[in-house]
């Protein structure tokens, strides 16, 4: 398929005797808003760790824009265009917000000049995200929503084609959730495909064009938000019989 961005093919991951992912396959298309949901411990974060390169798979293949990236280290996948935010924010604590963004700007696009325009570019991204007032603040002094925004801004600075947002909204208030949703939608409108992992159903259902549901390391459903809501297997996975 021409517009295929990411293809996960029969991926398996074991932690010792525990089978975290069993034969998981899914596709993300160019420009798509993709939702990944599932109960706690269903393997969502393991799957995106496999996609971003933090974990190696025990079987199966991962293709990005047609190239096999299954064995590439994480930093090379980021250079190819896969960026992620972390569920628990992992800022570079000794740096300011602006300096945090300079790291991916310098390393993800090494062809660009390592010079003055890096901070200008970082500032531009901060303006998009709405964090420009905190540019010179140390990352340790940010509030939770600001840290989440920093995670997104830093991922954006890697100039990705695919952004993986891992529970960016957990623990935020309703209006803050809306704020993050607006940012993600705006990014998507600029052509970036987004995988959203989220427990806040209101947000995922509104945001996603297509959703895949994981349960106990297996995909149990795939479809539009409406189809997922009406799916009995999904209901059973969340609520039991």
């Amino acid at each position, binding site marked *: 398929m021409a517009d295929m961005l990411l293809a996960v093919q029969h991926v398996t991951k074991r932690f010792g005797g525990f089978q975290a992912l069993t034969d998981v396959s899914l596709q993300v298309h160019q420009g798509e808003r993709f939702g990944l949901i599932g109960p706690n411990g269903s393997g969502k974060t393991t799957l995106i760790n496999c996609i*971003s*390169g*933090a974990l190696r798979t025990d079987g199966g293949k991962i293709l990005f824009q047609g190239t096999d990236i299954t064995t590439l*280290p*994480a*930093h*090379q996948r*980021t*250079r190819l265009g896969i*960026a*992620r935010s*972390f569920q628990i924010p*992992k*800022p*570079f*604590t*000794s*740096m300011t917000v602006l*300096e945090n963004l*300079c*790291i*991916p700007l*310098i*390393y*993800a696009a090494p062809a660009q000049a*390592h010079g003055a325009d890096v901070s200008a570019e970082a500032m531009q991204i901060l303006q998009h995200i709405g964090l420009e007032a905190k540019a010179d603040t140390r990352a340790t002094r940010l509030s939770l929503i600001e840290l989440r925004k920093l995670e997104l801004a*830093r991922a954006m*600075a*890697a100039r990705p084609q695919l952004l993986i947002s891992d529970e960016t909204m957990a623990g935020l208030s309703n209006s803050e959730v809306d704020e993050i949703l607006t940012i993600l939608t705006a990014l998507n409108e600029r052509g970036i495909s987004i995988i959203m992992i989220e427990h806040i159903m209101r947000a995922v259902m509104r945001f996603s064009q297509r959703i895949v549901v994981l349960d106990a390391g297996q995909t149990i459903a795939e479809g539009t938000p409406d189809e997922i809501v009406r799916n009995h297997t999904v209901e059973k996975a969340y609520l039991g019989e």
Partner: protein
Amino acid sequence: MKRCVPAVLALSIIGLGLLLTGMVENRYFYFATYVILQYIVLATAWNILGGYTGYVNFGTPAFFALGAYMATFLMLACHAPLPVLVLAGGLISGLLGLGLGYLTLRLKGVFFSIATLALTVVLQTVMINWEFVGGAKGLSIIRPATVLFFSSYVKFLFAVMLCLAVASVTIAWWIEHSWIGRGLAAIRDNEEAAECMAVPTLKLKILATTVSGALMGMAGAPFPLHVTLIEPTSAFNLDYAVNSLAMPMIGGTTTWLGPLVGAILLGTAQQTATVTISSALNLLIVGVVLVAFVILAPEGLVGLVRRLVQRERA
């Protein structure tokens, strides 16, 4: 123009040092200053891995002694001159750093530190059993009687160590201000996030262990000629591990200035105490000062001054 300032500064310090050798004759002065300069190299080298990258290395004696033993071997084997010894010491310890990087940098935090400690023990055992370079009882080293341009050999040693000190501080300064330094800082802050933000973490960490190791080996190479003796207990002395860690901690680990300030202050205090009070007091001073700094100024002197300046402005 601005880019030339560090280079001009570095060269003028070396120039001043050389001028000094023409004026001061007191041999003890050179002997003591050499030790302080040597600690500037060791502390700066340690800081590239420990301060910038966040990997605590207890193995300074291993790198230092390997440089010293490499030099001894070359002196015995082919009477190589000092500059060659320094380069060879740097090369072999750089290789040790490279190997250590490959084998152990997959270990995180305290496990890496334990591995560096083990490295020291293993290497010391090897040297104790290697008869050619003196084995357990050591060898006494005879300095060349004359040397070009200098009126005595101790002045020559001083000049060589001065160049090494200036070179290592310059290298640290350059790393800190380049894209490499930013990558190392990202690794120190959060290695997982750094890797996901396209920083080639393994490559940068190996670079840091190699450069750090090479500088330590270079500092060790003139050691047998300085004390006119090579012997495992003094070459693998615990002092090197403690001092090269304590000096950056006291000065401040995040900048090139920290280890420089720490080495000058602590090194001078130790040399003064050795002459005036007792030579056994050395490590006690380090211990007390280190504990005080860890509690009162965890960001070191540089961090303390910076905080005071900020408070003044605010």
